[in-house]
């Protein structure tokens, strides 16, 4: 016998949390404090009344509308453009793969203002691609489309990385099974990969959506700041910040409240089968202890 006969009853019915779980709980506590305190500080500064008053202002409404419009469009674009790339990276080996991986991650480390300049140099009037685009009468800077482009550039990595990890985690036996059931690669992707990687995709959408919603530096540098056209909420916040700190805080809290609602909505994708996504499933539910 490899353990003392009574050792197994030494622990209480519920195992007493030893060192590591204790540390884990402490870590969570610290994290929550770290994250929550600044919000408390921020919200403590504004009265709900001011919030409502500001929300009634057409300029604020305009910025809110534009923020929603652009960040949703940008996220949609990111998903459309990024999903194939994530899939490719997750399922195939090819030359230049590392390069593509790194390329996709680079926008994250670029200071946003510099990213905006880089975008200008590529897609601006004098940029080489922009030059070519303007031949077709297309000009991106100072337009809403430009805002979306800037957001896509900054937000894409935040979708692709988790999406790729999610795709890579899907059991290849299930894809094999789908192939023997006459599903083409496209169908395998849509009917097996996509639903099984959903939790990671949802994480990616929420990360990149949030990044697009909060995008400031690249937007103002590439697309400028014109109310109703390119002035999103973060831009309105920054401009307000230059003259009136409290106004900026109110706008930020507004942005927060909106995001809060959005995130609450998004996050409620049912994780029902997340826990049993792989293999053939197992009889019996997880222990209900």
């Amino acid at each position, binding site marked *: *016998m*490899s*353990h003392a006969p009574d*050792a*197994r*009853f030494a*622990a209480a*019915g*519920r*195992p007493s949390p030893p060192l590591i779980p204790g540390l884990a709980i402490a870590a969570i506590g610290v994290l929550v404090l770290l994250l929550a305190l600044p919000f408390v500080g921020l919200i403590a500064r504004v009265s709900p009344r001011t919030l409502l008053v500001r929300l009634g202002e057409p300029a604020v409404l305009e910025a809110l509308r534009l923020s929603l419009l652009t960040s949703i469009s940008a996220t949609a674009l990111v998903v459309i453009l990024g999903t194939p790339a994530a899939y490719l990276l997750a399922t195939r080996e090819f030359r230049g793969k590392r390069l593509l991986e790194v390329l996709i991650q680079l926008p994250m480390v670029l200071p946003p203002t510099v990213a905006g300049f880089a975008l200008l140099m590529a897609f601006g009037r004098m940029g080489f691609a922009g030059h070519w685009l303007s031949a077709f009468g297309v000009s991106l800077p100072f337009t809403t489309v430009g805002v979306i482009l800037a957001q896509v550039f900054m937000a894409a990595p935040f979708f692709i990385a988790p999406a790729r990890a999610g795709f890579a985690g899907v059991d290849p036996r299930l894809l094999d099974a789908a192939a023997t059931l006459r599903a083409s690669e496209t169908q395998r992707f849509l009917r097996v990969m996509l639903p099984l990687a959903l939790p990671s995709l949802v994480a990616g959408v929420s990360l990149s959506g949030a990044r697009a919603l909060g995008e400031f530096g690249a937007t103002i540098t590439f697309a400028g700041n014109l109310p109703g056209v390119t002035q999103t909420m973060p831009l309105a916040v920054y401009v307000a910040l230059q003259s009136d700190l409290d106004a900026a805080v109110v706008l930020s809290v507004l942005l927060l409240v909106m995001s809060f609602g959005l995130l609450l909505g998004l996050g409620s994708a049912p994780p029902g089968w997340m826990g049993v996504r792989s*293999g*053939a499933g*197992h*009889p*019996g*539910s*997880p*222990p*209900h*202890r």
Partner: protein
Amino acid sequence: MLDIRVRRRIGSFTLEAALAAPSGAVTVLVGESGSGKSTLLRLVAGLLDPDDGRIAWNGEPLVDPAARWSVPPEGRPIGYVAQDYALFPHLDARANVAFGLRAQRRPRREIERRVAATLDRFDLGALASRRPHQLSGGQQQRVALARALVLDPEILLLDEPLSALDLRTRRTVRAELRRTLQGLSCATLFVTHHPTEALAFGERIAVLEAGRVTQSGTRDDFVRRPRSRYVAEFLGVNLVDGTIAARHADGLVAVACEGTTLTVPDPGAEGAVRLVIHPHDIVVSRAAPAGSARNVLRGVVDEVIPEPPQGERVRVLLSTRPPLAAQVTRDAVETLGLVPGAEVFASFKATGVVVLAGEGGDA
């Protein structure tokens, strides 16, 4: 002694089972697909808690919801081989087997020694560095067995542990299992669908039907007194329910059953009885039999199935009323032309029938 008395609901299924598994013996658990065998093992393993009841090992409770007591799985002296192996895909066979010993922080030397010995015993030495996805189904199953047995558990829970093994490997593994079990006071719960395995392994056999233990006892009792249609089918014997209709003078009675009346030995009781008719006692013929057999039924051949080991005996399913299975030789099948659809007579002697009286029938 492992004492189980539990109730547990999962969705629309309820397991309500009482069972005792003695130490130093193998208790085979048989039952239809979905009858709750895996659920029962998971309850003993602590992967699932009962709603009600109690599981105790040598008198000490493993779980007792009334007392809000539940020893977590890692605290139970169990070895568990799941129906789907659940090998760790990121570890090779050796590391899979070493997992439990490492978790217990045994000295490195001891781990190496015990793991190597166990791998060898299960003939896995050459495969030790393979990851699960580089192993065949049977090889994976052996790794899963080795992984559980290396810990010398006191309670061994095996959920169809040999289902992926071929005959030869099965024989080795079975011998190895026996050796492991004999040295210890281990109580083993062994789930299997295979009559061969059930009879080969189980000193005791318990039958689970729709979440309830309907029969539980020694192998002999199981073989001689099948208490349910399921067990009869499992054993391959015919089970016919009926009521004693008349008492003959020669120690025989007439039993009224589905569509006919059969003549069988007098059980010395009244009312409902259950008849066990062994397939090899049934004679199949094309013409009406002339002999002394008291019971003659007419019917059509349904299916003809050669039986192992060599297919020299053949099982013939007949759509008589009641339907019967007969066992005949391959020669008989050929000379009589027993193909599906053939019209035949099935006859058997009254004295060959075992009559069980006062046994609760099942649906």
